[in-house]
């Protein structure tokens, strides 16, 4: 039997701990140990972005991340984006623009869009397109995704300036 690793970290604002095998990936831990099934498994190889989470403020593919590396870190999943009053503005924009078809790619797409906007309040459509390159949608709804991101940027901008 491989050794078990004890880790503790912040998950969507709460301090949690887990005992996991050394090669387990973060995606598996989130889904199977914490029941957070919003983060999706699709390619399992870093190509599609369905498993995107935020680690210490930066997005990465949880399918490639060793769960043991979560120790001491601040992890946010799609479940952690919601605000006390409901969906966050990026989630709302996706719904309002009908950017969602089957929805499978959406948690990753929204995590990445939210990250892009948080880091660049004046994100252009072209920058959004480049920033979302690591997120594949097999329903190919990219135009509406970009519309949604653009409108989320506008809302954020107007609130600020």
């Amino acid at each position, binding site marked *: *039997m*491989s*050794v078990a*690793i004890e880790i503790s970290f912040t998950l969507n604002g709460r301090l949690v701990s887990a005992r996991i*095998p*050394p*090669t387990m*990936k973060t995606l598996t831990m989130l889904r199977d140990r914490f029941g957070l099934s919003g983060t999706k498994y699709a390619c*399992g*190889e*870093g*190509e599609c*972005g369905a498993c*995107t989470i935020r680690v210490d403020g*930066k*997005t*990465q*593919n949880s*399918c*490639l*991340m*060793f769960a*043991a*590396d979560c*120790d001491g870190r601040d992890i946010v999943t799609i479940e952690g984006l919601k605000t006390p009053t409901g969906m966050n503005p990026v989630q709302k924009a996706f719904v309002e623009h009908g950017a969602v078809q089957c929805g499978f790619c959406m948690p990753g797409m929204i995590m*990445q869009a939210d*990250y*892009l906007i948080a880091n660049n309040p004046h994100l252009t459509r072209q920058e959004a397109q*480049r*920033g979302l*390159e*690591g*997120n594949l949608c097999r329903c190919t709804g990219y135009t509406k995704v970009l519309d949604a991101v653009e409108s989320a940027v506008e809302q954020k901008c107007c609130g600020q300036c």
Partner: protein
Amino acid sequence: MQEITSYLAPRSLDEALQAMATGDVTVFCGGTDLAPQTEAGVRRYSTRLMNIRRIENLDGIEEKDGVIRIGALTTISEIRRHPLIAGAAPILAEAAEHFASDQIRNVASIGGNICNASPAGDMINPLLVLDAAVELASWADGAQQKRRVPLEHFFTSPQRTVKRADELLTSVTFRKPAADFVGRFRKSGPRPALEISTVSVGVGGNFSGGVLRNARVAFGSVAPTPLRARHVEAALEGCKLNADVISAALVAARSDAKPIDDVRASAWYRSHLLEVFLEEVLHHVRGN
């Protein structure tokens, strides 16, 4: 499922090197190469697994005495945005710009890209153009042992390097290029990102009055290792970059490249792409 008897996440370089001195350890940083390779079964873990991401003072980009040093843990995202790189070695930022996706770049390390030793490793090409060297550290006689290896002599065959199993790559360094240095990079791919290079070309040198001096040319994915294209360099050295010189460089490229057929492209297509890219990059250099 293979048995792993210990998982290490050292905070200091000493601790990491001491562990490596006592036998086989599988090292990872971002894990973006190691995770898919082990999942696909093309690589096995040894009984000890070591995460080097927490080692202190092994990341960051700094300049000292005219030398730029990039710590092994530095991510591709950091290189892509760093003002020192943008100012002194934009060819590295150019390669970072065309590297994977945001989610990968945020964790993929420069050390991992070099040590994975893929002929398609995208940061290797511009580092060869910058004539970089790597620093390797190990533990012996109760102290850190360090050696420097020019990047050009680091790779021996695909996934193989001169680095011993007990050595960690700690940094990559290169002389800050002079103000007249021009460097350009081009990799293949129908889209800007998430594309493993079918061919990559980097060209650099001191360029003034239309003449290229200290020409350095690197090719990726056209031989078992990333390489310096010495025949092309000789064809360009000290020459005015006119149509004749560029034609001669394209002919010389055939002596440097040893492309093969594989899942991504045929050898014929690679040779063709290489010429097209080399010509394009040389025109970019000339346009500077």
